[in-house]
């Protein structure tokens, strides 16, 4: 009786230990701190990977990108704001690393250009419409009307 009980107890214990191994655990998020991770990914999506140059820093698999992502996480953990992190990177790599061009005198044309195009287009639209309204209707020639009617009849 005792032996059976011990065996049962042992079996239970083993099952108890084995169960988590069989079920697996909740997968751990890649970043240690999900909030920092989210902030880092959001920021890095708008940054350029300097190695491949046509991927964002968030998506690139290059080693330098990994290093920079680690560094950004560390800076954020140390309490740096997004702006300070960006400054850290642009001090070292220049504005080239930003996919969102800064709003500076040399990029005024870039950021204001679309507005300018819409404005010019609207102006053009206005002027054209004014001219069109002022046109007189062309009077229709009786003979042309008759010819048109004939053509339409032919098509039936």
């Amino acid at each position, binding site marked *: 009786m005792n032996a059976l009980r011990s065996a049962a107890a042992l079996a239970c214990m083993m099952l108890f230990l084995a169960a988590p*191994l*069989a*079920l*697996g*655990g*909740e*997968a*751990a*998020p*890649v*970043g240690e701190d999900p909030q920092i*991770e989210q902030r880092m990914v959001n920021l890095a999506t*708008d940054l*350029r990977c300097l190695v*491949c*140059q*046509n*991927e*964002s820093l968030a*998506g690139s*698999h290059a080693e330098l990108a990994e290093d920079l992502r680690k560094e950004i996480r560390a800076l954020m953990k140390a309490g740096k704001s997004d702006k300070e992190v960006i400054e850290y990177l642009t001090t070292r790599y*220049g*504005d*080239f*690393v*930003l*996919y*969102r*061009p800064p709003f500076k005198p*040399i*990029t005024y*044309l*870039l*950021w204001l*250009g*679309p507005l300018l*195009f*819409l404005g010019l*287009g*609207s102006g*053009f*639209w206005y002027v*054209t*419409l004014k001219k*069109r*309204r*002022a*046109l*007189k*209707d*062309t009077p229709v020639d009786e003979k042309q009307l008759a010819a048109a009617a004939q*053509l339409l009849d*032919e*098509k039936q």
Partner: protein
Amino acid sequence: MIPELGHFALIVALLLAITQSILPLYGAQKGNVILMSVARPAAQGQFVFVAIAFGCLAYSFLTNDFSVENVARNSFSQLPKVYRFTATWGSHEGSMLLWALILAVWTTAVSVFSRHLPDDMVARVIGIMGLVSTGFLTFLLTTSNPFLRLLPAAAEGRDLNPLLQDPGMVIHPPMLYMGYVGFSVAFAFAIAALLSGRMDAAWARWSRPWTTVAWAFLSFGIALGSWWAYNELGWGGWWFWDPTENASFMPWLAGTALIHSLAVTEKRGAFKAWTVLLAITAFSLSLLGTFLVRSGVLSSVHAFATDPARGAFILSFLVVVIGGSLALFAWRAPKMLTGGRFNWFSREALLLSNNVVLLAALGSVLLGTLYPLLMDALGMGKISVGPPYFNAVFVPVMVPALFLMGIGPLTRWKGDSLPDMAARLKWALAVSVATGFLLPMTLKGFNPWATLGIALAVWIALSVLIGFRERLMHTQGGLLRRLGNLPRGFWGMQLAHFGIALGVAGITLVANYQTERDVRMNVGDHTELAGYTFTFQGTTEHPGPNYRAARGTIEVSRGGAKLFDLHPEKRIYNAAGMPMTEAAINYSFTRDVYVALGEPLDDNATTWVVRIFHKPFINWIWIGALFLAVGGFMAASDRRYRIAVKAIAPANAAVQGA
């Protein structure tokens, strides 16, 4: 032997292209019927020889002829047969040959389907296309010969870039080129109009179906490229505003403005100068795209091996073609008579505003794409212009066009009543705005961007339905019969606009409501996203025809019940040892579940970084694009473009005499 045959065929093709250009153009200028009649046979002959050349290159790839340098650089003996075929256009040289082939196809199509056009117009159109062919064939033969031999022959090829070993490669470049190159027809018609000094509504009717078909192909090609990138690249996105993507999108924007401008020119004889300029612009942007991607001037993931010498050739070609046509435009444009009058509130006015917005959008994309080059060329340093810029700028600019899309198709030509229109649309407006506000509120709370996108999508969709209802109101018979009797031009427009509504809805919903999870998974670990549970079952070794893969198994379940398995892969290709991520996607009408493997975190590859996405309604984007393309093809097949030849013959004779 075969490569030399191909090379020879290209030379013959070039000679025929020169013949096809000079003789008919001169003949049209002088009214010489014999010279003009050279156009069709020359074009068809050119097609035969370009096809032979293409066939020779394809043959070399299919038979693994590594004595041809192009094959050695871009193929691999273990490459599956279909990808050996597509590798024919996987390189700069091969893709240029494809360009030349498709140009020859379009020219032949024009030569066949133009019996109802006046001889001088046909001669000019084919002649101008011949000039473009001459340029491309010369470029091929002088700087980009695909038939160069590699002696001694390589034992093995360097393999096609793994990213290109995908079904998308089979169809995306040909469709895209059908679009780009197809705009050469609209371009040729425009130049022909400028040269002849004749541009009437009949001209618009002739060129419109060609332009619409090219545009439909381009729409399809771009959508395919985007879907392919989504499937293949493993980063979960579908549009990156990369210079090459922009290079295809800009001709599309110009082409869209063009088909709408052609509508006004055909129906009302107005906007002639606009239409000609847009036709020149659309094709010029196609050519510009070719330049940007091959010259090394811009850095792009898509760029071919860059070569400034080739870049210089293409640039010179651009100067001749684009510069020449714009100069011709400046000289001859005033000779075109303006069309009739129209009011502030009329379909013409709304189409004009549509064009203004599309061109502003086009200008913005061009500005953003070229700005880094501008800054660098002026010595002002290097900056990057990426998705944050384009998304911030493009969306607001397009909003007016999307709003007007709901009104324009319902507006009368020449003049309509604004109060009447308001009455017709007031319920649609109310429903759109209400849906726009309520849907985000029930999902995750107030979201202005989602509101805007959803409201616009509903607005356009409702307008399409109202269009059908109003059009059917005065007809008799059963519903299906009445719908069937509506002209294809009308159906095409409705389908295309509805496609835009679907696309806008898809983009808005996926951009605002997609969710993602990046986790470290051990065998047996699970995680949750959007109500689904993902359990990692580990990886197995999985050899492919020309790669080795670690194939993961992720079981996806909901509420304890298993739904499906996903098998993302991490591949290493044999030839170059290049690693690649192959995402696994479960598609559905309402959402995609997307899983990709990151890096293995330990040496025996039992722990992996896994990226999981839930993308609601993302397939609406591509379904919308499909509607767009189908709508275009449908509109181009409208009955009025296929009127029997004999009814037109008397009118044709009258024009000839003029």
